């Protein structure tokens, strides 16, 4: 060790310059790829379904990196951590891309592009069922109202008859009277209940529509409080505001701290990171419920939010190590980041390899063991044909056993070159994990009404690659811009000394 570093020598920060060619290349790839993608979408409308999955895959992958970056930033503040100050700006720069990715996700959300209905079948199914039920309701309405009115009349007559019977009795015994009176009360209640029903045109139609909706799509009817368009839009807005808002606020305070060194910003970041963990977790959980679990509206798992969270934190840490190494290779951050930081990041990567595997295995295992049809569906698709090999090779061996074994070795975590290699592998596995979450649904969903259900759509991988490259370009362009816009590490952070002199 070259002696104790003094934070005062680092108060000016370090600016990222250069890579402007790369940035232009990213912009070109992003813009060009996106244009090509959407030209293809409108030129070959038959492929809309297949292409919608490609776009979702690309968006979710990069969004998971950004959300992971936000998680690491918040964790750093919430645990009052000292080690990570010098790499925190990278996490913040990753997190701030969340709003950008929401813009990129817009084609998925706006129904006129045609992606939304292809991805989330409950949208068209719900619309079709509702309009069908409505038609039926309109047809039946007159007859129904007449029937109900006749029913009301009959009930009233019954009440009148009962009252008359009671009046006609010359000297009823107390028991008989009591019995008769109780009968009258219950008949009156029945009549008033019938009368309470809204038998206006809208009322009757709505009752009948509900009835038909329940009969034709019972499951969707039960979920109508959650799976309906207006609430869905409210939720999307909530995700954007919460995730994007937290990222923006935390980064802006951190950059302000760079300028004036006022510990107030530091205290705010800490305080709000704790308080906002709960909205953060809620937003990410329900986002992946809506976007990914919703690919098959009948399937469910309480673990789903945790599973996607573990993947996001894992992939994001791998990406941070890669980004850090590339920056150091280009000559930045060399004085501030040491092997000790690599070692900790390697350990966190290992922790999340294990945590991810723990969550993934538990989810698989419990569904496999209980063997309930509604739940096994998800894994049956992924254990069929091509996807079976894929699962074993990438999800089991590639995503867990390989990085787990490699990261156990202490020396490897301290060597940037080797840790970089492992992180590239981990990031690739995270890509394959997101692919595995989304794509097995594509074949069966799109060919559900065809003669033979296919597991894979031939040639669709081209769109996957195109979408991935396009979103990667956009992501890379904005990431480079954010890197440029402030110091590469929080240069006046009160914990800077501690982080600079980190010893594990």
């Amino acid at each position, binding site marked *: 060790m070259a002696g104790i570093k003094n934070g005062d020598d680092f108060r000016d920060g370090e600016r990222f310059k250069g890579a402007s060619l790369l940035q232009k290349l990213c912009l070109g790839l992003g813009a060009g790829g996106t244009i090509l993608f959407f030209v293809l979408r409108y030129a070959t409308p038959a492929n809309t379904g297949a292409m919608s999955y490609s776009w979702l895959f690309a968006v979710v992958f990069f969004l998971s990196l950004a959300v992971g970056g936000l998680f690491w930033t918040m964790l750093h503040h919430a645990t009052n951590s000292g080690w990570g100050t010098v790499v925190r700006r990278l996490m913040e720069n990753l997190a701030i891309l969340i709003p950008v990715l929401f813009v990129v996700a817009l084609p998925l959300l706006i129904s006129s592009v045609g992606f939304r209905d292809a991805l989330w079948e409950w949208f068209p199914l719900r619309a079709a069922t509702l309009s069908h039920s409505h038609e039926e309701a309109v047809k039946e309405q007159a007859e129904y109202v007449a029937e109900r009115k006749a029913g009301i009349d009959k009930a009233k007559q019954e009440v009148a008859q009962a009252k008359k019977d009671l009046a006609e009795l010359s000297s009823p015994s107390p028991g008989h009277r009591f019995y008769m009176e109780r009968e009258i009360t219950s008949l009156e209640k029945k009549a008033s209940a019938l009368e309470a029903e809204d038998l206006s045109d809208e009322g009757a139609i709505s009752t009948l529509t509900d009835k038909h909706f329940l009969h034709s799509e019972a499951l969707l009817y039960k979920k109508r409080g959650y799976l309906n368009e207006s609430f869905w839009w409210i939720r999307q807005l909530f995700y954007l505001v919460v995730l994007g808002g937290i990222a923006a606020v935390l980064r802006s305070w951190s950059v302000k701290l760079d300028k004036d060194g006022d510990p107030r910003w530091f205290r705010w970041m800490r305080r709000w990171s704790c308080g906002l963990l709960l909205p953060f977790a809620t937003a990410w959980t329900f986002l992946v419920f809506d976007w990914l679990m919703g690919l098959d509206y009948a399937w469910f798992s309480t673990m789903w939010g945790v599973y996607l969270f573990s993947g996001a934190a894992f992939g994001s840490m791998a990406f941070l190590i890669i980004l850090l190494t590339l920056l150091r290779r280009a000559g930045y951050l060399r004085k501030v980041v040491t092997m000790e930081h690599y070692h900790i990041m390697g350990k966190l990567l290992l922790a999340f390899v294990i945590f991810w595997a723990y969550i993934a295995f538990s989810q698989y295992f*419990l569904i496999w063991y209980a063997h309930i049809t509604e739940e096994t569906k998800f894994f049956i698709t992924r254990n069929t044909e091509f996807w079976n090999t894929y699962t074993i090779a990438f999800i089991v061996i590639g995503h867990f056993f390989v990085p787990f074994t490699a990261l156990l070795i202490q020396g490897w975590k301290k060597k940037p070159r080797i840790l970089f290699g492992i992180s590239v592998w981990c990031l690739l596995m995270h890509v394959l994990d997101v692919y595995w979450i989304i794509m097995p649904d594509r074949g069966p969903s799109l060919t559900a009404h065809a003669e033979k259900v296919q597991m894979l759509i031939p040639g669709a991988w081209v769109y996957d690659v195109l979408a991935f490259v396009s979103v990667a370009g956009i992501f890379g362009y904005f990431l480079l811009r954010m890197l440029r816009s402030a110091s590469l590490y929080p240069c006046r952070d009160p*914990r800077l000394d501690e982080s600079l002199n980190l010893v594990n």
Partner: protein
Amino acid sequence: MADTTQANLLTAVHPSEAEGVAREPLVLNQRSLGWITDRICGIVENRQPLIWWILFVPSVAGFLALVFSLFYLVSTGVGVWGMNHPVAWGWDIVNFVFWIGIGHAGTLISAILFLTRQKWRTSVNRAAEAMTIFAVICAGIFPGFHVGRFWMVWFLAPIPNSNGIWQNFKSPLLWDVFAVSTYFTVSLIFWYVGLIPDLASLRDRAKSLLRKRIYGFFALGWRGGNRQWRHYEMAYLLLAALATPLVLSVHTVVSFDFATSVIPGWHTTIFPPYFVAGAIFGGFAMVLTLMLPIRKLYGLEDLFTHKHIDNMAKIILLTGTIVGYAYIMELFISYYAGNAYETDAFHMRILSGPYTWAYYCMFFCNVISPQIFWFKWARHNLWVVFIIANFVNAGMWFERFVIIPTSLARDFLPGQWGYYSASWVEKTLFVGSFGLFLMLFLLFLRFLPVIAISEVKGVLPESDPHYPAWKRLRLGRRGEK
């Protein structure tokens, strides 16, 4: 001009010393190494205060009640419990999971916090590990007697025998046997290894020969040499790494006991992490319940400081909120899944069933009450911390009660519905298990150092090789006085 700038610099607060930024010391009042040894060993070497006896006698009575009710149970039969047809798992399994959960904080503090370099663990790890071992002992009693014929409990172990018994390796109940016994073994070894240097300190300070011999036997010839420390620390690190998966595995397997079934209310995929979070939650609450009085009683305020209590309160807040997340996920998915059995099970759990009171007790104790720890004043008021910790202790018992009997009491067919309430034998067993637990813990206080002396010394600022020599000198002089 130059002089004033210089003066400003000297008086200015360094950013890392600013309010809300500075790291708090882990040992207060700059206590010296000798003071730490004297204070902790003093607990073992001096006479116990009266309150120790006031607690010890009822604990032994509770333990005897446990022995008596177990004797009555075995001699009469499991029928003396309140279990009935749909509810075949009652307080026995509730208590088992409750105690196992409490046993989790020990390994978390000793292993995971060790690996993550959380230095504040040193003041609590010894007591937490002891608590873990005693809690697992209490837990082990319940499934052991739940099997019915206690003298045949060895059937659970896959050992060669001539009876043609083959254990059902497909059952999570059997995995539990392995998980819990492994956990117990590793926790015990970990605890003992951590004790060795401190046992040597007690040996060296012993005044009677018998005492010297006994502590000397268990200290395994520890002399505190450089080589011994090197090997010791490596062994401790490896044990910590080996113990870490156990923090997850034990309660995961316990959650499998329920979640692998198809009983609505038991089968849900979030169970493993939810159980682990709950176990850590309950374990930390019990550590606080024990440590707060001990701290006061034996004058350990400088070693077990507000900083420690603050951290533990925050962990309780975090894990309590995670548990709350799991409750909400269960409720949401029971609605979202649209599965009639799931929906009904949760409807009965929260609205129409016979045990809704238990659900709301659980929810209040586990999710609502810890939210007060968002406020600093609450984390720093020992009474508030103590009361909330006990709410959590109760809440975690209710959680297991809500999961186990309430799901069983409403089977798929209304003809198989029932109601379960515990008999006096079950109640005595539960109270008695607390007696056993407290008895063991009080004996631990009496005979072993409650705080890891050597580890606390390691986190003192003067243990840092870069600690300025002039400060060391000053400390040395103070020690002479």
